[in-house]
């Protein structure tokens, strides 16, 4: 399995993703600079967190015009697996690979702490190692994570089971106390209609080793490795 982590000017979670993929999962992983036009032939593309282009204008708005994003779009169009974390999720929305947008947190504050998210569907390349309904403790670190989409889009996401992660309380209950940013329907992560592009605001790569205080994010990388192994055999 080969993975690439795209580095934009201002990315700051690229090394965290490299660490998990290469050191923890043993995946052949390399960085690719945003000015590149060719992804190579990876099994997985990660758009990491950070502040690409200083979040100027809007988070992700300028990064989406980086040359490599055109290659990511073509790759995703062929069914390639793309994971966008935090700023990566924002870029995927701005690029139109995922619907909706991420606005300023309703608290107006940069929120940096653990949250609880419930795995709403395990039937994706990103979540098969989890149990449906499993509650994960994973950190967030963002000021613009307040997901919004028009009502028809939200309805479609729900009806098609494309809300993959939802903010909840520790016990897995929705409502007051779980949602850290005002996201519509408590949405923490969604997948595209084809099921190969996922974006989420929480950072699974920061919860993938015991020393980090939680290993609840590891399941996402285990899911991806298992998926890619199966895809290669098939």
């Amino acid at each position: 399995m080969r993975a690439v982590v795209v580095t934009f000017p201002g990315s700051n979670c690229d090394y965290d993703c490299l660490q998990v993929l290469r050191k923890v999962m043993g995946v052949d992983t390399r960085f690719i600079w945003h000015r590149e036009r060719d992804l190579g032939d990876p099994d997985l593309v990660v758009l990491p967190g950070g502040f690409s282009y200083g979040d100027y204008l809007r988070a992700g708005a300028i990064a989406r015009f980086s040359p490599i994003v055109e290659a990511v779009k073509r790759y995703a169009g062929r069914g390639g697996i793309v994971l966008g974390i935090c700023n990566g999720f924002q870029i995927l929305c701005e690029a139109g690979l995922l619907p909706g947008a991420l606005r300023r947190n309703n608290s107006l504050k940069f929120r940096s702490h653990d949250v609880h998210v419930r795995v709403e569907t395990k039937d994706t390349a990103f979540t098969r190692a989890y149990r449906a309904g499993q509650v994960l403790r994973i950190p967030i670190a963002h000021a613009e994570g307040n997901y919004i989409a028009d009502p028809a889009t939200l309805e479609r996401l729900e009806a098609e089971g494309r809300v993959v992660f939802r903010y909840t309380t520790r016990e897995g209950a929705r409502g007051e106390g779980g949602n850290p940013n005002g996201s519509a329907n408590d949405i923490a992560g969604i997948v595209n209609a084809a099921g190969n592009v996922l974006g989420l605001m929480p950072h699974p790569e920061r919860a993938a080793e015991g020393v980090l205080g939680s290993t609840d994010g590891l399941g996402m990388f285990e899911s991806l490795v298992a998926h890619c192994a199966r895809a290669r055999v098939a």
Partner: protein
Amino acid sequence: MSAYAIEIRVTPRRGLLDPQGKAIQHALDSLGFAGVGEVRAGKLLVIELDADSPDEAAARATRMCEKLLANPVTEDFAIEVGRNAGQPEAAT
């Protein structure tokens, strides 16, 4: 070709909760400013643009907004075209 000063106002879409505007509204309230209704906080972009006519300048600014400057999911934009300050009026 003339230089136009284009002012583009980008504001949170009406009807969407604007947390920043809300916070400003509360601050104005608590300072005792009476009669403050809804406040929405956006951004103002001032762009110098060479174009053949005000219409062409406005059309190009609209494309800029649609492609980059405003997010169609969350924001509205309004464009105002003015002649660049310091630029002499074209002789007729």
